């Protein structure tokens, strides 16, 4: 499947937990996060979608921010998980696993039925 074609409403739901997951590896900044998301197969996430999400994480106290100089270019705003953010990342990941297990059992049945008919 072409990863660029994930429905946007699916991405909206999963983006928060994915960003928290990326930040578990260490502080990062907007553009690098979009690159990581693309490498992970989520397709292109626009800045207009990502930064408001990061703003909400900051507001909730899940991340701390820090402007650092760029490499010969503009500064970069780094986002680092707080202790609260790490806990949130673990909690959301666990819930997402439960959620996907639930949906997976349904979609597996759907696949079994549709392939059974063919």
């Amino acid at each position, binding site marked *: 499947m072409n990863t660029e074609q994930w429905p946007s409403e699916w991405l909206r739901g999963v983006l928060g937990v994915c960003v928290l997951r990326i930040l578990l590896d260490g502080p990062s900044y907007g553009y690098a996060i979009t690159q990581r998301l693309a490498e992970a197969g989520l397709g292109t996430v626009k*800045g207009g979608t990502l930064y*408001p999400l990061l703003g909400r994480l900051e507001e909730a106290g899940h991340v701390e921010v820090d402007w650092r100089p760029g490499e010969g270019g503009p500064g*970069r*705003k780094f986002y680092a998980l707080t202790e609260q953010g790490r806990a949130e990342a673990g909690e959301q990941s666990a819930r997402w696993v439960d959620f996907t297990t639930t949906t997976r059992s349904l979609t597996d049945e759907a696949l079994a039925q549709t392939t059974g008919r063919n």
Partner: protein
Amino acid sequence: MNSIAKRPTEGDPRAVTETHSRTTDHLRLAPSVEPAWVEDFVLEQRLLGVPGDRIGDALALVQSHVAESGESVHEAFGDPVAYAREAASTRRVDDDRDLSWILGSGLGLAGMLLTLFGVQAWIDGDGRLALTVGHLVALGLVVVAFALLHLASEPFLRFVLRRPWSTLGLFVLHFAAMVAAFVFLRTPVAHVPAGATVAVGVTTLALGTLLEWRSRTAGQLEDPILGPGEGRPARRRLDWFGGLTLLMFPVLTVAMVGFSLLVARLS
């Protein structure tokens, strides 16, 4: 005239916190971004009441992302107004309305009208101001306009920006209604000494101007758009234009009193 924001140098994290001598031009924070996009974004955030330092931070983010990704700002962030709303909604905007300025301008306006009414009554000769229904209606119209301007400033400013000609029409209608109230609603409801009216008017005018001056010198009206790490710029001395706006009501009062005296002398 506008200084370009100093770019931080590699390996010197402190460089990013350096302040700039002039921080009045927000386009400097997003030099790679289409100016029209920046202007629309800033206008919408201003209308939403987002503080200047948060607008500056958001602009620096846009600049950073666009410069690094090579995408156009429309590609990466879409419509500026929609993005401005989305970015503003992440944090509730503090509504720190500047009360001393609002009170100051309100008192300034009231003082101006009282002084003019008193002087006109004195010119007319009997030393008493016949307070008419027209006076009260005109004052009511001023209060309504004033309340609209200050208490519903966001929808009011949106209307002004969207429909400048309708705004001008409404302004003319409002003024005409005030003049009509003076001219046609002459039934007196009370009589007050003209001298006392002028004294109260001048005192109110002075108090209003003082409050506005205090508000201005305390920098409450200034909310510059600051980039990450930029400090507030050193307070500039009040220039002639700033002084003129501060003295708007006293200057208008003097001009209108002068005009009334001139008309009285000529007639």
